[in-house]
Each structure stands twice: as C-alpha cells, then as structure tokens.
C-alpha cells in the first residue's frame, strides 16, 4: 500500500512540475508551491562547472513580498538574510542563491523550496493581522455612528516625546475628547507594554489633558493574559475586548465623553 500511495503522490506531483530550458546552462523549474498573487515558486538551475550548479529565483520571492505591499527595508532584508542563512541560502541583489553539487541537487532543491516558501509567506502573517485590525476598527466606527459620536479617522496626537497615530479621535467639545485605538497583532504582551508607554507619552503632553484614551484589544486571533490587560488598564481610561463593543458607549459615557442624559422635553 505504501508503494501505491507514494507512487500516486509522486506521479501527481511530477505532473504539476513544469520546466523550461533557457539555454544550455540554465533550466527553470516551476513547483506547485505558491507565493503572493498565487505565483508559483520557480527555481533556475544554472551550471557553473561540470559538478556544481547554483539555484536562484530571479528575485521573485522578495519581489512578491514587495508586490504584496511590503517595503523591503534594509532591516527587513537583514532579518530575511539571517533566516535564509540557516539553510545556506544567500541573498544577492534580491535573489535567493544556493550553491550545490549535482550529486546533492535533489536535497538542495528541497531545502531551497522550503526557504523560499518560508520567506515568501512572511507577508501573509502581517497582511492578515493588519486586515483583522481594520475589520475591528470598522465595527467600532459602526458603534460610534449608531451613537452619533463625531470622530475623525487616523489622526496624530502629539506626545511629549513623539507623535502617535490614533485610529479614531473624538475632539473635545464641551465634553472630554477621546483617542481610541484598536490594538491588534502578534505578541500581545509586548503590544500592551508598547501602549503603556504610548499612553504615558500622550498624557504628558499638556494639550491632551482633556482627552481620554480607549484601547480595544483584538481577541480573535491572540490570547491576552491578565498581565497584558493590566498593562493596558494601568494607563488607558477605557479598555475593552473586541468582542465587548456593546459596552463601549456606556464605558465612554462614564468618562464623560458623551452625554447620556435624556434630552429634556420642551415645556409647552
């Protein structure tokens, strides 16, 4: 049975592989592994001597990361290079390169594929998280819209040390203002500590004296420990989990941001 299963798999896999001979020294192989935009991983095998060859990707792996909307800063490249070096893959002019002997070509291709897929998929993690945070933000906006709270999106607040990007800002207008941010991403504990510092910096700027801070932490993908929540609660006026938005109007009303008093009936 093992032979039959393996045989069927290898036969199907073979059919999914496409090759193209560029010239007598270069062959490109397209593998059924996908990067951004459903692009396949293509490896070009270039002969450099009778026994040795070099595997490269025509700069596609890093190119796809860029096409997916991530800029390749020197810092990101340095980190990717460290990751690639673990498998002996080098990054030269944005090309992933791996030298190999023809004797070990099979193993080298497998190693290269694994590394290319790993580097190429780095963007997926961050892209998903960014989208997830924005989904939650639109839910918060719906709450604000339904309670007729006027706000501005993506505003900057001056801190004592630096400016801070805020998702939604309700300007003070007779009542205290509100700076609301959705806290979403990996490593929730570090995020909480970062926001502890940010809140502190915002508070230190005198012009923000009349602004309350609300933080909505995203609980859909990550766990928030009690200590992480404690970091947020220590500095923010309101903290709420993303699945508790129904409490938001009441919580910000207790901070005086909106007036919950029922309008008086006009005297006749």
């Amino acid at each position, binding site marked *: 049975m093992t032979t039959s299963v393996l045989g069927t798999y290898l036969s199907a896999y073979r059919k999914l592989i*496409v090759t193209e001979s560029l010239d007598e020294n270069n062959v490109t192989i397209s593998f059924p592994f996908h990067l951004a935009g459903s692009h396949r991983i293509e490896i070009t095998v270039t002969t*450099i001597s009778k026994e040795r060859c070099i595997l*490269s990707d*025509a700069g596609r792996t890093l190119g796809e990361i860029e096409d997916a909307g991530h800029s390749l800063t020197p810092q990101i490249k340095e980190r990717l290079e460290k990751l690639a070096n673990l498998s002996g893959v080098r990054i030269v002019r*944005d090309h992933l390169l791996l030298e190999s002997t023809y004797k070990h070509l099979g193993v080298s291709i497998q190693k290269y594929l694994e590394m290319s897929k790993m580097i190429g998929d780095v963007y997926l993690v961050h892209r998903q998280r960014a989208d997830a945070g924005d989904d939650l933000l639109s839910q918060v906006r719906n709450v604000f819209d339904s309670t007729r709270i006027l706000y501005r999106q993506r505003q900057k607040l001056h801190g004592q040390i630096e400016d801070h990007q805020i998702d939604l800002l309700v300007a003070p207008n007779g009542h205290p203002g509100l700076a609301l941010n959705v806290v979403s991403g990996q490593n929730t504990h570090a995020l909480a500590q970062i926001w502890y510092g940010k809140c502190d910096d915002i508070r230190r700027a005198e012009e923000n004296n009349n602004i309350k801070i609300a933080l909505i932490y995203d609980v859909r993908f990550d766990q928030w420990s009690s200590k992480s929540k404690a970091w947020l609660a220590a500095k923010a006026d309101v903290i709420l989990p993303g699945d508790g938005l129904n409490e938001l109007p009441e919580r910000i009303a207790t901070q005086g941001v909106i007036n919950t008093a029922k309008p008086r009936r006009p005297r006749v």
Partner: protein
Amino acid sequence: MPQEFTKADVDYLIAASKFIRIVPPLPQFGSQRPTVIRIQSEIFKKSEPNNPIRGLIIIAKARQAPTGLPKPNPSSALEWNGKRIRGLNYELRHDNPDGTIVKGWHEHLWSPEDQDSYVVSARPKPQRCGLGDVFKWSLKKWNIKILEKQEDVPGWEV
C-alpha cells in the same frame, strides 16, 4: 484595509480613457540602483485632465541578476490605493484559484474575492521584453495614452 472599491469600479476605471502626461525617463542600473529599476507615472482621466486619478499609479520594474545568472523578465502593475488591480508578469505556469492554468505572459485581474490571484493569458506577446517595452505594453492594455512621448531621452528606446 476596508474595501474601498468594487470589481465594477475597477473595470470601469480600466475602460475609461486615460493618459499619462509624459513617459518617464528610463533609469539605468548603477551604484544608486544596483538591484531594481522602476518607472512609474500618475494617471489622468481624459474627462478630468487637470487632476491625476487619486491613488492610481502605473509601475514597471526590472531586476538586475547577479553575474552569470539569467536576466529576469520585467513586470508591470497598475496599483490603486496600494492594491494591484492589474499586472503583467511572466511565469512558466500560473495556477488560478478556480483551477485553470495559464502559461507564460499573463495579466492579473483584480476582484474582491481573489484579489490579484486570478490571471488570464496576456496577448499579443511583446516583441521585446525590455523594461520600456513592458511599460508601453501595459499602457496599451489598460487604455492609457501618452500625451507627450519622451523619445529624446537617451536609452529609452530599448
């Protein structure tokens, strides 16, 4: 990001008569651009010639291969608010989300479901595959005219 446009918006935008003011000069690889060269331009609607279409740019780029390795094909993209709504690329084989296969030069189409993953075969194939050729091919495909040609820029006619 919340979805800012629909497939109909994109298709309408592609079909609209558009132009770029000038063909940008063709950059060369050098010490300042050792890895990748790009040409890009903002795009105007013929109906509103004074204001560029907000967030819409056309970009073509080519990569320099390390010595001894084959030269990669250039690619181009039409990006709207950071999303690739159209693209031209070369790939031995592209697997579409619906299971169909496209070989060689292909055009990426954008939809809310598949984003830029779905491609169709791009024909007619360009005669030459320089960065400038792919840029001009993209202009033609996406209904973008050139107001002024920059034929006098050295190195443009690659």
